[in-house]
């Protein structure tokens, strides 16, 4: 097994994938590093990638009503960054900024979409991982909007 395949197979997001699926994913992947403050993705840019985080912290940002950057979530090792590549029109909704040095696997979204279309078992495995992640993030985002601590 190649190094990249091994890293992908070890990543929590892909740990349930069959070996042949890890190999297919690795064909769309490469290792990347980001310095603190650099961007993995920018709002409104084409969502032509997504990331498996290996180390470091990524801040999910948007602009506050005052125009200043507002961090609405952070992600760390073992997390994925980016779900917009799955849904047309394939555009990033938020900025993703490296809050410190970040190591990640970047996946080419066009390549992954093509492989998921060609191999529905891979597509299903991918969806089985993405849907719970997206749902749990939606639930957490709903809790954040409740402003719970305002009445604590």
């Amino acid at each position, binding site marked *: 097994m190649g190094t990249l395949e091994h890293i992908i197979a070890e990543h929590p997001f892909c740990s349930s994938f069959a070996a042949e699926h890890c190999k297919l994913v690795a064909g769309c992947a490469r290792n990347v590093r980001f310095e603190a403050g650099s961007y993995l993705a920018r709002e409104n840019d084409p969502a032509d990638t997504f990331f498996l985080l290996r180390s470091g912290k990524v*801040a*999910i*940002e948007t602009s506050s009503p005052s125009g*200043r*950057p*507002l*961090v*609405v*979530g*952070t992600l*760390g090792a*073992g997390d994925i960054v980016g779900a917009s590549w799955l849904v047309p029109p394939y555009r990033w909704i938020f900025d993703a900024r490296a*809050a*410190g040095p970040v190591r990640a696997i970047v996946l080419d979204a066009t390549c992954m979409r093509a492989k998921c279309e060609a191999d529905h078992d891979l597509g299903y495995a991918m969806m089985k991982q993405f849907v719970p992640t997206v749902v*749990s993030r939606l*639930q*957490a*985002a709903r*809790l*954040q909007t*409740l*402003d*719970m*601590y*305002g*009445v*604590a």
Partner: protein
Amino acid sequence: MAFAPAPAPGSFTPSLAKVTAKRSEIGDVVTLDLETPPGSMEHARPGQFNMLYAFGVGEVAISISGNANGRLEHTIRAVGAVSQALADLEPGTSIGIRGPFGAGWPVGTQTDKNKDIVIVAGGLGLAPLRPVVRDILAHRDRYGRVFILVGSRNPEAILYDEELRDWRKRFDLEVEVTVDYAGRGWRGNVGAVTCLIGNAGFDPESSVAMVCGPEIMMRFVAGALVDAGMPDHRIHLSMERNMKCAVGLCGRCQFGPTFICKDGPVMSYDTLRPLLAIGEL
């Protein structure tokens, strides 16, 4: 200051307590240090509360947020007439105090011995849990790993930030803080406090959880702990209701078949789960 003898626990007669210090915490939150009659508070357990009486204004239930070396601490958010009157007090003034009341956290008992401890606090919910952390640190060998997970609205609203920093420096505590939103200056986590639970790394089979915060937060945190594999009876929540008598007579704090002042405020999730599902309670 000369004190009258302490009334028996559960009495309706307040004792006199002197405000010896006052610290501004965050926003409209202050902590009062109180000097109380000898023998009246030494036995108070983490998680219990006192009824504090602002003379001429009224009485309110406030959790004990510290009780060591003769210093009784109460952290108060000024949200109503009584709590505002208490928050406005200055050192040297006096208040009435009744207590301690209620069931405390299962700390220092056979329930928690050698267990991992998972403390989850939201907003001001850290106040009743701070004595637990201090008690654990005073008897650190009794416990397994200790996780302190804190949620706050934003970085400026984090309670006891200096003490949290001290806890984070220790090698025998695992402390994570998350906020709902933040500017770029914040280097910590951003997200719901429930997100910290799955990544914490405690062993749900041998852990005891103590949770305090807004009720809706505690509901979701308890759900996340159960999802992580922790049994209901080892999850403890500190409930809050308006209290009047504090001894289970007036019924003001009735919560289903229980009285929060007497049966709580700390109760286990196996008791609370069916009650928390009833929105009208």
